[in-house]
C-alpha cells in the first residue's frame, strides 16, 4: 500500500502503459518485437497474448527487479526496520511479506500491460474476434509465475548483497543474461526455464519452420527489431497447449522460491548490521566542563562573502567519489584499463557503457540526495541554489564521467576521430542531465536506474538507435541531436527545480 501511494508508482504505471503500447507494434510501424525468419503472426488474440506475455516476461523481469529490489533498504533507511526487528515477526514471515509485496506490485504492472494490449487488439486486430482465454493463458503460465521468481530474487539479492547495490546490479545483470541466452535443447528442459518463455518461442519457431519447410535453426529476433518491410510475411499462430510438466514446473519454481526465502531467512541480518563507520573509543569527544571551551560568537573571525562555486563543486565531487564502497573503485580502474587495452571499437561500444553503468548509484541521486539525506532544508535555503548548487552538482557528475572516459577520449583523439571525442563528451553530459531530470521529475532514483539499465542493455546488444555516446556510425546530425537532447533536458531540470523552490 505504501508503495502504491508513491509518486514513483504512478510514473511506473505510466511507463508501463507506454512500454505496453510498444509490445505489439501498430500494423504500419517501422519495427517489430517478435520476428521469426521474416515472419510475424496475424494479429489475433493468441498472437497478441503470447507476444505480450513473452515481452512482459523479458522486460518486466529486467525492469521489475530494479523496481522492487529496495524494500529492505527502505526499511533500514526509514528506521522502520528497527521497529520490525523488535516485533515477534519471524525473519521468514517478514521476508515472504516483502516477496508478496514485490509480487503485488509486479502483478499490478502486468494487469496494466494486459489492459493496454487489449485496447491495442481492438485497434489493430486483423479481423479476428477477441478470445479472452487465448489472450490470458500465456500470462497465467508465463509472466505470473516468472514475476514471483523475480520477486523472490529481489529479496534474496538484497539479503545476500546488503548495501552492495552495485554488486546486486551486476549479479542480476549476469543472471538475466544467462537466463536469456540459455536455450533448452530438449523439451523436458523447458521446465528449468525460470522466465518460462522459451517453450512458446520454440513453438512459434517450429510453426514457422513448418511453413518454410526447414529443419535448420532459423533467426528468431526478439526485442525492438527494425526489419526490411518488404520481407515481412504473416502466419497464423493459434497459441499452444502447455504440457502438464511445464505447468507443474511453474508451481515448483514458486515453491522453490518460498523455500529459498526460508533458507535465506536464516542468515537475514534483521537490521542488526554492523555499521561501516564506527566510532573507535579514541574518537569519542572528551567531555569538557561547561565553560572550558566556551566561545564568544561575536569574537569569531567574520566570514567574507564568496559566491564562487568551486567549494560546492569540490564537495559535490567528493560526495560522488566517496559514494559506495571504496574497493568498488577497483572495478572502475579495471574498466579504465580495459578502455586502453581492448580494440578501440570494442572499448567504445561495450566497455564505455558498462563502465558508465557502474556509476549508476552515483548518478541516480545527484539531484535528489538532499531529500534522501534530509539536507534539503539547508540546500533549498542556500544562496541562489539554482545558479550555484544545481550547476555544481551537474558539473561534478560530468567531471567524474569524463575522468572515467579519459583513456578512450585520448585514444580517439590520437586517431583524429574528433567527432567521436565530442560524442563521448556529449554522451557523458547527456547521461548526467538525464539522471538529474528523471531524479527531479520522479523525486527518486529508481526511474533513472531502470532507464539507464535498459539503455545499457540495448547498447550492449548493438542497437544503434539507443547509442548516446557515438559508438556506432551515425549521420552528421547525430551530434546536433545529442546537443538538442542535452539542452531540452537541462531546461526541464532547471524549470522543475525552480518550480519546486518557488512553491
Amino acid at each position: 500500500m505504501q508503495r502504491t501511494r508513491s509518486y514513483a508508482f504512478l510514473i511506473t504505471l505510466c511507463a508501463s502503459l507506454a512500454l505496453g503500447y510498444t509490445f505489439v507494434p501498430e500494423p504500419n510501424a517501422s519495427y517489430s518485437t517478435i520476428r521469426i525468419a521474416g515472419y510475424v503472426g496475424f494479429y489475433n488474440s493468441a498472437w497478441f497474448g503470447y507476444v505480450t506475455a513473452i515481452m512482459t516476461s523479458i522486460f518486466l523481469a529486467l525492469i521489475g527487479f530494479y523496481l522492487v529490489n529496495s524494500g529492505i533498504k527502505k526499511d533500514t533507511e526509514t528506521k522502520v526496520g528497527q521497529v520490525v526487528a523488535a516485533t515477534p515477526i519471524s525473519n521468514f514471515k517478514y521476508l515472504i511479506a516483502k516477496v508478496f509485496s514485490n509480487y503485488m506490485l509486479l502483478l499490478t504492472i502486468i494487469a496494466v500491460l494486459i489492459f493496454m494490449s487489449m485496447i491495442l487488439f481492438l485497434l489493430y486486430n486483423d479481423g479476428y474476434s477477441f478470445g479472452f482465454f487465448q489472450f490470458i493463458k500465456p500470462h497465467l503460465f508465463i509472466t505470473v509465475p516468472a514475476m514471483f521468481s523475480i520477486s523472490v530474487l529481489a529479496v534474496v539479492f538484497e539479503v545476500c548483497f546488503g548495501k552492495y547495490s552495485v554488486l546486486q546490479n551486476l549479479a542480476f545483470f549476469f543472471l538475466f543474461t544467462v537466463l536469456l541466452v540459455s536455450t533448452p535443447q530438449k523439451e523436458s528442459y523447458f521446465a528449468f526455464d525460470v522466465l518460462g518463455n522459451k517453450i512458446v518461442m520454440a513453438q512459434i519457431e517450429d510453426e514457422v519452420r513448418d511453413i518454410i519447410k526447414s529443419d535448420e535453426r532459423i533467426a528468431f529476433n526478439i526485442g525492438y527489431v527494425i526489419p526490411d518491410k518488404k520481407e515481412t510475411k504473416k502466419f497464423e499462430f493459434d497459441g499452444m497447449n502447455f504440457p502438464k510438466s511445464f505447468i507443474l514446473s511453474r508451481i515448483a519454481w514458486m515453491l522453490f522460491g518460498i523455500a529459498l526465502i526460508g533458507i535465506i531467512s536464516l542468515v537475514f541480518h534483521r537490521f542488526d548490521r554492523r555499521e561501516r563507520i564506527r566510532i573507535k573509543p579514541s574518537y569519542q569527544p572528551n567531555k569538557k566542563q561547561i565553560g572550558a571551551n566556551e566561545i564568544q560568537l561575536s569574537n569569531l573571525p567574520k566570514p567574507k562573502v564568496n559566491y564562487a562555486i568551486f567549494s560546492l563543486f569540490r564537495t559535490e565531487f567528493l560526495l560522488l567519489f566517496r559514494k559506495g564502497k571504496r574497493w568498488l573503485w577497483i572495478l572502475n580502474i579495471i574498466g579504465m584499463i580495459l578502455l586502453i587495452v581492448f580494440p578501440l571499437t570494442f572499448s567504445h561500444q561495450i566497455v564505455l557503457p558498462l563502465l558508465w553503468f557502474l556509476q549508476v548509484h552515483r548518478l541516480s541521486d545527484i539531484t535528489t540526495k538532499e531529500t534522501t539525506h534530509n539536507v534539503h532544508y539547508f540546500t533549498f535555503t542556500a544562496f541562489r541554489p539554482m545558479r550555484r548548487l544545481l550547476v555544481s552538482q551537474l558539473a561534478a557528475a560530468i567531471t567524474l564521467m569524463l575522468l572515467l572516459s579519459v583513456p578512450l577520449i585520448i585514444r580517439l583523439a590520437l586517431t583524429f576521430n574528433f567527432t567521436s571525442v565530442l560524442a563521448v563528451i556529449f554522451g557523458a553530459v547527456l547521461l548526467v542531465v538525464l539522471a538529474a531530470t528523471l531524479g527531479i521529475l520522479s523525486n527518486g532514483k529508481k526511474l533513472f536506474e531502470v532507464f539507464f539499465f535498459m539503455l545499457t542493455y540495448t547498447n550492449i546488444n548493438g542497437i544503434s538507435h539507443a547509442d548516446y555516446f557515438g559508438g556506432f556510425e551515425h549521420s552528421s546530425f547525430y551530434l546536433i541531436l545529442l546537443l538538442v537532447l542535452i539542452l531540452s533536458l537541462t531546461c526541464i531540470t532547471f524549470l522543475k527545480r525552480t518550480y519546486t523552490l518557488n512553491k
Partner: protein
Amino acid sequence: MQLDIQNISKRYSRNKFGLKDFSMQIETGILGLLGPNGAGKSTLLKMIATVTKPTNGIIALNQNNIAKDPNYMRKQLGFLPQDFGVYPNLNAFEFLEYMAAMKGIGGSDLKLRISQLLEGLNLIDAAKKPIGSYSGGMKQRVGIAQALLNNPKIVIFDEPTVGLDPEERVRFRNLISDLANDCIVILSSHIVSDIDTIADQVAIIKDGSLITHGGQEEIINLVKDKVYEVSIPKDELAAFKEKHIIVSTTRLKGELVVRYITENPLENSTNMQANLEDAYLYLTKTN
C-alpha cells in the same frame, strides 16, 4: 533588525490550515516560540526561512518582502530545522565548508571560524571523522554550527535542544545568548524550560493562531494568583483533572501534591508563584 509577519496563512487543502491569519512583529533579541505539537511552529519557521511560501500575507525583513526576494533573507539567515540530516560520508569540517559555500561565504578566516565553532560546540575532537559515525546529539551540534556559520543576523532554531544532554543544553544557551544583542533569534520548542531561561520575548501559538506575544513577565502575570498547590488522595486525581488545569503532580506519602491553575481554589490550597510553564499550560488549555 525588524521582522514583520503580516496576516500570513498557510493552507494545505480547502479546510486545512497550517497557519491562519498570523501576525507578529519581531525585533532584535531572543524570541521563544512555544506551542503544542502541531501548533504550526515549524510551518511558521519554514516560511520565515524561505523554505516554503505563505499562501497569503507578507513576511518582511527590514521591509523587504522575503517571498519576492528570498536571497535577501538567505544571505543573513542561520537556520536549524527540526528534522534535518547530513551527508554521512563527509566529516564535520567538510560538511561545514560545504554549508559555507552554499551560504556564499568563504575567505581565509573561514577555516578558523569553523574550528572555533566546533570547539565551542565540543566537536573539535571528532571534526575529522565521518558524520555518519556521530551520535544524535553530535549531529544536532553540527546543525547548530552550520546555522551560526555565516555570522547570521536572523537565526532560527527549531527544537534545537533535541538530543542534547543537560550539559550541552547549558552550553547551547550560553552560546546563543551572545547573539541577542544584534540579531533576531527565534527559538522554537514545546519544552518551556528551554525558553524561560533565555528568551526576552515569548510567543505562544496553538492551532495555527497566535495566542499571546510579549515579555515573559507580562505573560506570567496572566496567571498570577491562579496557581495553587494542594494535597489530594490518589483516587481523587481523575475527578480533580476534570475541574482544574493540572501543571504537575508529585507523590508524597500516599498522597499526591498537585500544582494546578484555577480561579476558584480548593480549601487548604497554597498560592504559588507563577512561572512561564503555568502560563503556557493555562493559555493553551483555555484558548
